[in-house]
């Protein structure tokens, strides 16, 4: 779906390039996570990919066609939900959807279906200025997908959402992927990236040192050990065992057979740990 090769981009007033020869590809029906701290170049990459920034070097193709050569029809196939809601505050939820829907000629979702799905149908006639941040984020999300885009750009989609709405939105994103949408997700949120992304790329200072699936990264960078918390003599104790030969490890078998176990966890790395290890920088 997307192929980026040796992408180099410099802003006119800055000496150092914002993007330094980055290359990656995003497959059809994949959720590709772009992780990195503020100023790393994530937004610049997204702006190039959405055709906003034109004067780049290298190649950015969508379905084999260079982004620079796309006309306005190009936007019939893409949807973008920015980190901060982009909505007319005096308009109602329905008016906002109707305004944006008027730009597209392609097939669209039914507004009632979308609003009901994100729990906003009852509030459809309220002006957006009366909405909470979470409600605005949900409306912003459905505004971006109302024209059934084949390629969806999401920037911190769960920011400001309570846990239940965050879960609902993540399920919605996974459903879109399963129904054929390719999703480019920009986030600081490691839990979101871990739960949603088929592959992630770490961006730091305009470069991409790592691109892989979260599962593989966690296995590569984790310790192959198991940590057990258990009660012994009314005291809470912790012990770590190597996964190698665990089934025949007598000490481990004794422990689990004769003690009250509180928790057992394998010690794979979190994405946050891996990001820190690879880039030397914190994500947030």
């Amino acid at each position, binding site marked *: 779906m997307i192929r980026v090769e040796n992408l180099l981009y410099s802003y006119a007033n800055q000496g150092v390039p914002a993007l330094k020869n980055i290359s990656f590809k995003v497959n059809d029906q994949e959720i590709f996570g772009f992780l990195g701290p503020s100023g790393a170049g994530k937004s610049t990459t997204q702006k190039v990919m*959405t*055709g*906003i*920034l*034109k004067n780049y070097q290298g190649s950015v193709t969508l379905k084999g066609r260079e982004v620079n050569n796309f006309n*306005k*029809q*190009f*936007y*019939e196939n*893409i949807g*973008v939900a*920015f980190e*901060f*809601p*982009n*909505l*007319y*505050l*005096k*308009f109602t939820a329905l*008016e906002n959807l*109707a*305004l*944006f829907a*008027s*730009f*597209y*000629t392609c097939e669209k979702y039914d507004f009632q279906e979308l609003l009901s799905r994100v729990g906003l149908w009852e509030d459809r006639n309220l*002006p957006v200025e009366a909405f909470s941040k979470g409600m605005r984020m949900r409306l912003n999300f459905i*505004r971006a997908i109302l024209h059934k885009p084949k390629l969806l750009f999401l920037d911190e989609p769960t920011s400001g959402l309570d846990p239940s709405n965050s879960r609902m939105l993540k399920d919605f994103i996974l459903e879109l992927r399963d129904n054929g949408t390719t999703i480019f997700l920009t986030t600081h949120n490691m839990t979101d990236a871990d739960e949603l992304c088929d592959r992630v790329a770490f961006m730091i200072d305009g470069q991409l040192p790592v691109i892989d699936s979260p599962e593989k990264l966690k296995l590569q960078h984790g310790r192959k050990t198991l940590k057990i918390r258990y009660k012994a003599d009314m005291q809470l104790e912790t012990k770590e065992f190597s996964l190698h030969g665990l089934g025949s490890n007598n000490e481990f078998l004794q422990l689990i057979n004769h003690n009250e176990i509180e928790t057992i966890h394998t010690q794979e790395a979190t994405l946050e740990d891996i990001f820190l290890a690879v880039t030397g920088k914190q994500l947030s």
Partner: protein
Amino acid sequence: MILCSILSIDFLAIKFRRMKNSIIKNTAQLLKLAHFDVLFQYKQGFYLVYAILTAVYLLLLFYLPETVRPEVAAYLILSDTSVLGMVFVGALVLLEKQQNVLQSLFITPMKLSTYIFSKAISLTLIATLVSSAIGFIPGAMLDRCLSMLASVILCSLFFTFLGLGVSSRANTLNEYFGGILLAGLVMVVPLALFFIHPVLSMIFPINAAVTLLITPATQQTLVSNIAGISVLICWNIVAYRYAMSQFNKNIIHK
């Protein structure tokens, strides 16, 4: 030979059909967006402000002697379409910037030209309604209603384009007012030329608009009206191109 002719006629017919469909599609999109712009202006209270101003203008004109009514009406209409038009278009764009909607508008299939024309049409609609209310009161401009409407529409479009160009650079009302004050001065200064060389001064938009407004029907000629309208159309093209380039530079490809 005959086959070639048939093929070229077919080719032209296809091109014509495509062009017609494209025009219908773009016009439909423009009208839809203009509808939402009017709704936005209404919800932001612009129509209330215009209604109050119109009521004040009408009261003022009713109490003025009929001898000065046309001139005062002309200057009220001119200030309404130029100053208010520019202030309102600036406020519209700044509100859209504040609500972060511009970036999402321009990553849709909607063209920049549709956005610019929609703003211009919606504001020109309200300016025309207000100007008609002022101009068509007894003793004002009933005798020259066509030249008045032409002046109002072209002047309003021109100042909206100009205001759009300036507002694309501004992030605050103060920055915007600084910009339109400068643009306004550049536009108003040529008015002085009117008293030195009335014919030559017609090449400036404000002078052409004033001439169309204040010249009584008995003194108007077809040539002078066509000249005034042509000047305003030319300035509109310049202002439209300015608005397009400034939006491309300051908003879309920023």
